């Protein structure tokens, strides 16, 4: 199994009464709450944490794209990836990813990813998210009823731009280019692996299976609800004769400490900050018409799983969040055991862990990264060793199993 560290680069300093005084952390979050000094520190600490994760033994590092929000400060994850391509030497650089429907022309994404692949020496994972409704429909004004069609067209264009040997013309509904001739082209041949983050829509499952892309279920509803979604994915996959666990990724919040008291003291408030403030989203921004397809709406209603994520408005406590599986917290052996269970139950070959989330400060984030990388991850790598990972960048490191936890670098 591969284990990657995912970083959202959250704004860690929202006021205590944020939830009471504001309707949404996304789209119309007040600009008065933004302090560029804090952002400057946050970006640099985030880059340090990503680099540190690579050094202490993670297989890859993940960053993603969000707009007009305090939840994740990386409108351009490619800028972070570019720094990481230089600051790290062997891990996978997983850009998770670029919302390809938002770029006009989408060839921009093909170019920047090709640059990143060349700079990193062939360590890039190219993520193609549809993007959240808040980011796409509201932040970037993209018409939700046309987003998926635009996405499909952009994907076709980017893949062709990477793979075709000759200059070609592209006469799309949304993009017309007389000459498509990519300079640079990716180092990986024919192209970097494509990972598609999703939130449980049927169309995304089908796309991933049809095209052979990795499907990553990114949600904070935890492994208990994640099981429902991944069962749906594997049903579609199995029908197509696909059963390789490396075809799927899953995101999980993790914190490690020596005992219950320490867990509470160190992580309770930061976990609550994440779930109660970072996911405080005005419902009107989360589900514009056409964003979810009719089939997905019907399936959701049929399965009675419509209140995904945090549809309710109640504040949740650390203990409730642990109980529901939203966060996996415990001693290294408890966390190892739970993550092994999650990976097996959900049939996950790529586990993406958040060690910094909510308001976890820099030093504590590093501690959590180090302990997870050294005391948990080595004991999980042996999983799925009977399968081949076709979704790993050609020149990214493949670390060994149980025996060799990486050395702790000097802090």
């Amino acid at each position, binding site marked *: 199994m591969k284990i990657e560290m995912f970083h959202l680069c959250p704004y860690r300093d929202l006021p205590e009464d944020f939830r009471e005084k504001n309707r949404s952390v996304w789209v119309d979050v007040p600009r008065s709450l933004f302090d560029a000094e804090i952002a400057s520190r946050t970006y640099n600490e985030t880059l340090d944490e990503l680099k540190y994760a690579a050094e202490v033994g993670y297989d890859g590092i993940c960053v993603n794209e969000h707009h007009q929000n305090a939840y994740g400060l990386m409108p351009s994850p490619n800028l972070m990836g570019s720094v990481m391509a230089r600051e790290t030497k062997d891990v996978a650089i997983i850009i998770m990813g670029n919302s390809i429907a938002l770029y006009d022309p989408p060839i921009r994404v093909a170019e920047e990813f090709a640059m990143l692949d060349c700079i990193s020496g062939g360590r890039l994972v190219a993520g193609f998210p549809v993007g959240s409704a808040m980011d796409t*429909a*509201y932040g970037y*004004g993209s*018409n*939700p*009823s*046309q987003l998926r069609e635009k996405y499909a067209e952009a994907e076709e264009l980017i893949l062709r731009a990477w793979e075709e040997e000759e200059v070609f013309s592209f006469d799309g*509904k949304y993009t017309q280019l007389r000459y498509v001739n990519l300079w640079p082209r990716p180092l990986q041949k024919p192209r970097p692996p494509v990972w598609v983050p999703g939130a449980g829509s049927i169309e995304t499952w089908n796309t991933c299976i049809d095209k052979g892309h990795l499907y990553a279920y990114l949600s904070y509803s935890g492994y208990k609800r994640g099981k429902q979604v991944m069962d749906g994915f594997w049903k579609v996959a199995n029908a197509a004769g696909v059963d390789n666990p490396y075809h799927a990724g899953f995101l999980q919040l993790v914190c490690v400490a020596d005992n219950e008291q320490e867990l509470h003291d160190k992580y309770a408030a930061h976990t609550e900050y994440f779930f109660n403030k970072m996911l405080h989203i*005005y*419902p*009107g*921004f*989360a*589900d*514009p*018409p*056409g964003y*979810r397809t*009719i089939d997905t*709406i*019907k399936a*959701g*209603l*049929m399965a*009675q799983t*419509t*209140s995904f994520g945090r*549809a309710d408005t109640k504040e949740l406590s650390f203990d409730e969040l642990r109980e529901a599986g939203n966060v996996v917290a415990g001693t290294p052996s408890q966390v190892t055991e739970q993550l092994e269970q999650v990976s097996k139950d959900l049939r996950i070959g790529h586990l993406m862990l958040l060690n910094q989330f909510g308001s976890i400060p820099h030093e504590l984030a590093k501690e959590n990264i180090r302990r997870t990388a050294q005391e948990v991850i080595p004991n999980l790598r042996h999983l799925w060793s009977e399968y081949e990972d076709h979704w790993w960048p050609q020149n990214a490191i493949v670390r060994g199993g149980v025996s060799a936890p990486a050395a702790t670098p000097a802090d």
Partner: protein
Amino acid sequence: MKERSVSVRNGDFQVDVLEGGSGDPLLYLHGVAGLEWTPLLEGLANGHTVIAPRTPGFGESTGTEKLHDIHDLTFFYLDLLDELGLDNLPIVGHSLGGMFAAELAATQPARFSHVALAAPFGLWNDASPVIDLFSVSLPELAAAMYADVKSEVAVAIATAPQARMTEVDPATDAGQATIGYLVERSKSMSTAAKYLWPIPNRGLSKRLHRVRQPALVIWGESDGIIPPGYAERFASQMPNAAVHVVPDAAHMVVDEQPNHVVGLIESLLAR
């Protein structure tokens, strides 16, 4: 009233058309809320043959996926009128249908004898924005649509189920009804979004001067969807248009004050 299904462009579109009354034809284009045979249409049917098509994407009318933008929609409607053999007739449009009516009248002015626009979308004023129709909560939406928020129809909208929040039991009739309702709303609202997202301005102000027919712009006095100030904005760009603001009505003026609106349209047609 009769309802029939009309094939357009060799079956690319299959369009429901409601038709009732007698006399010269009158075309009615419905708004975002959808099409029903309302007291307004019944009133207009007293002197006219009212022809009311259901826009693709609403109800059983198909082909919305073949319409990419407002121009596709305009030419679809021209094809439908060709199919129905309609020419030289008055056009009345409400809300989204008002925007369509304005586009049609600007594209083929000679085809339409009179133009009545009730609370049309299509223009934008930074100083007085149109409501964000797609993100407002249902109670806010109901209050913006109706002058009387306590009316049965306003309460029904304010308390309607929401796809993200609703738990349904698909095994029951009530559950199936809720699913049907939510699917229809998603379908019709994403159709509206094609023409209104993210700002309901598709360049109509560059064409509106071509609407030279006798015209009337009707607005509900307390419209919270599109502020009544837009009435003047429309009329000032149409060379032969009058404005009438209707009291005790909001965006759903055609349903809230049907007799008043029928009277206004009849006097327009007498011009």
